[in-house]
Each structure stands twice: as C-alpha cells, then as structure tokens.
C-alpha cells in the first residue's frame, strides 16, 4: 500500500488504469441496461415499473459501499498519515452522497405506483435518508475550516464515528419501524429472485462500482493537480 503513497507513482499508474476502467464501465452499463430494459421480464404484480429496481438497488448498494470506502480511507489516513488516503476519502464523499440521493429519489418514484405515496417511513428508506445526512455533515465539516489539513483530519474522525454508529442507527430504525407499522411494506420479489432479473442487477451493480473507481481516479488526479497549482501560485506570491 505504501508503494502507492508516492503521488507521482500513483499518477503514472492511474494514467494507465483509467482508460481501461472507463471502457469496462461503459461496456457493463451497456450490457446491463440492455438486459434490464429488454431481456428481463416485467413483474407479474408490479408490471414494467419493476425496472426501476435495476437502478435503485445498485444505487443503494453504492451509497453504502462509498461510505465504507470513505471510512477505510479515513482510518488509513489517520493511522498511517497516508497522503493519498485523505484525498481518496474526500473524493468518495460526493459520489456516495449522489448515489444515496439517487437511491432515495428512485425509491420515491417507485413508491408512488407501488405504495400509492411518494414517501413511506420504511426502515430502509429512513436509514438511507440518515446516511444521506451523514454524507452532508461530512462534506460540510470538510469545507468548514480555513486550513484544509484540519478539515481533512476532522472529517476523517467524523467518518469513523459515523461508521461505528451506522449499524446502531440501522438497528434502531428497523426496531422503530416494526414497532410503528408492522408488515405494510411490500418486500422486493420475495425471498428468491429469478436469474433473468438477477443477472442484469448484478451486472449493473458492478458497472456502478466501475463508475466509482473511474470517478475516484479522475477526482484524485484533479485534486493532486489542484494542489500543485496552489503551491505554484503560493511560490509566485512569495517569491515575487
């Protein structure tokens, strides 16, 4: 891991890897979306609107995956002071927040035809909403300091506190939900899901992860370049 701590070496590798990741992502999206829209059957109960699932479920997975990635990167940054981990954690947050929002929005659109309402206080929806708030808090804390290094450190601590708390929040929201409205929620497709629906779902889930890696590489490179520009500007100001 520390082999990649050197930003120059990282940039060299990233420049090679990035086009590959991009092509794999685009191919997987094309295949997955084709399968989702054309080969997967419509649900016998939910009709065509079941196809929202192929965006909604991978987006929800992405929202949680990004938070986990952010927490791991923050731990690495705090413990080993790894210079790229800070940047990686910072770069993961907006992607995670965007996909959490996407999951909430598609869930709401799916809820209207299925449950007859835009929003229900379903345990999963509620925990995603709280996850979204945690992302917002993380990004707000990061931007709240004049000294960028302090913002990075403070938000790393927050990401870890949030990671410890998330399972507790998830558990208590599940508890709260079963207490308030038992079994009014339609569960997705029952316990088993037919392979013709499972495959596009899995392919799209991998495509989403590919997109994450792609955007992560772009954002890390952009951040490193921005740092260079800032240093050059400072040198110009001080060097006269």
């Amino acid at each position, binding site marked *: 891991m520390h082999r990649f701590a050197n930003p120059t070496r990282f940039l060299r590798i990233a420049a090679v890897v990035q086009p590959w990741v991009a092509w794999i992502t685009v191919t997987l999206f094309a295949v997955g979306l084709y399968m989702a829209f054309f080969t997967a059957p419509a649900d016998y109960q939910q009709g065509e609107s079941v196809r929202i699932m192929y965006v909604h479920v991978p987006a929800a997975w992405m929202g949680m995956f990004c938070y986990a990635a952010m927490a791991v990167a923050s731990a690495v940054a705090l413990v080993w002071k790894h210079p790229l981990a800070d940047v990686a954690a910072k770069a993961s947050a907006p992607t995670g927040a965007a996909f959490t929002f996407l999951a909430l929005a598609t869930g709401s659109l799916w809820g209207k035809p299925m449950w007859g309402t835009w929003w229900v206080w379903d345990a999963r929806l509620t925990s995603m909403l709280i996850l979204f*708030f945690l992302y917002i808090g993380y990004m707000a804390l990061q931007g*709240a300091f004049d000294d960028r290094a*302090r913002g990075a450190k*403070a938000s790393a*601590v927050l990401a870890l506190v949030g990671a410890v708390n998330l399972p*507790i929040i998830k558990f*208590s929201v599940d508890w709260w939900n079963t207490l308030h409205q038992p079994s009014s929620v339609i569960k997705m497709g029952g316990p088993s899901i037919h392979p013709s629906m499972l495959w596009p779902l899995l392919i799209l889930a991998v495509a989403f992860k590919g997109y994450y890696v792609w955007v992560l590489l772009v954002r890390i490179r952009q951040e490193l370049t921005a740092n260079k520009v800032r240093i050059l500007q400072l040198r110009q100001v001080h060097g006269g």
Partner: protein
Amino acid sequence: MGAFFNMVRRDLNLAFRQGMDSLMVVAFFVIAVVLFPFGVGPEPNTLARIAAGTIWVAALLASMLSLERLFQTDYEDGSLELMALAPIPLEVTVLAKVTAHWLTTGLPLLVTAPLLAVLMQLPDDGFWVLMAALALGTPTLSFIGAVGAALVLGSRRGGVLLSLLVLPLYIPVLIFGVSAVEAAIGDLTVRPHLLILAGLMVGAVALTPWASAAALRQAVE
C-alpha cells in the same frame, strides 16, 4: 482520579459563576415543548399521544444547544492546549468535562421533565419510565455531542454545523427513549428498552472519549 474530580469541580465552578447558562437551557426546553400545544391544538388526547416524543425531541435540541460551550471557551483562552499537554490523558479530561456538562445541563432537564409531562398530559403510567429513560439517555447525548463539539472547534459557523453532525447520531437514543415510554403507557414490558438505553450509554462512555480526544488533539495541534 483526583485530577478527574478537580476537573469536574473546575467546570462546575465555572458554570455556576456564569450562572444563567444552564437556566437558559432549561428555559429553552420548556418553551420548545410549550409551543407544541399551540401547533397541534389543546385537545388532551392528542397531547397525550405526542407527549413522550415532544419531550424527547425538545430534550435532544436543548442538550445540543448547550454543547458549544463545552470546549469553546477553553479553546479560545488557551486552557485546552495546557490540558492537552498535561500529564493526565486527554481522554480522562474529556470524561470529566462531559460529566460536568451533564451535571449542568442533563440533570436540570431531568428535573424539569415532570413539569412538562404534566403540561403535556402524559399518562401516569409513563411518568417514571420517562424519568428513567431520560436519566439513561441524556448522558449518551452529552457524550456523543462532545465528539461533535470537539470536531467543530475553530470552524466557520460552528453552531449550525454542530447540529448537522450530531443530530443524526442522536436518533437511536430518541427511538429507544420514546419507545420505552410508549411501552409503559401501552402496558408492555419496559425493561428491554431501558436496557438498550443503558447499553448505548455504556458504549458511549467507553468509546466516545477516544474520538473526542482525537478531535481535540488535532484542534490544538
């Protein structure tokens, strides 16, 4: 241990000499709850239905509002740097400061709660459970809040930011605090809810001082 009690005594002294601060928290608590009958109407059944939730949400907000002064003044006058350099671990200092904070805010809230329970027509069955739940829940709020208060030291708009960071983390306490009271009113068993609240408190006492101390260290660096 002596250092711990000295720190608690120091913070209590400071709080008493500034006087009005904990009274203002109590005043906020009362006013926030009193607003609800105006919002939903004075009908006793409605009030009884929302009493536990209202009192808990107001307690959450009141305890959050008082967090800012937990570390802020020490940060501004430089005492915090001396505490970080002192031979006692910063985690113990945090523990002491949070204890003092709870004694000056959580305890007054606990004392005021019965009055509000009467105003909100809370059924008699829920009365003692509400007190027990608040006694177990408010220390957790202070401990979790201390992490947030330490993180926002020296930031722009710390107050608003603090609410964004801390309120999502308060949700488990709110859920179990309210469900304990509702269980008591509905003649269900109360014990598991209180046990979970106690568990949350023990977890918070054990874990959050580390996070707060880490946040304080990077603040005074």
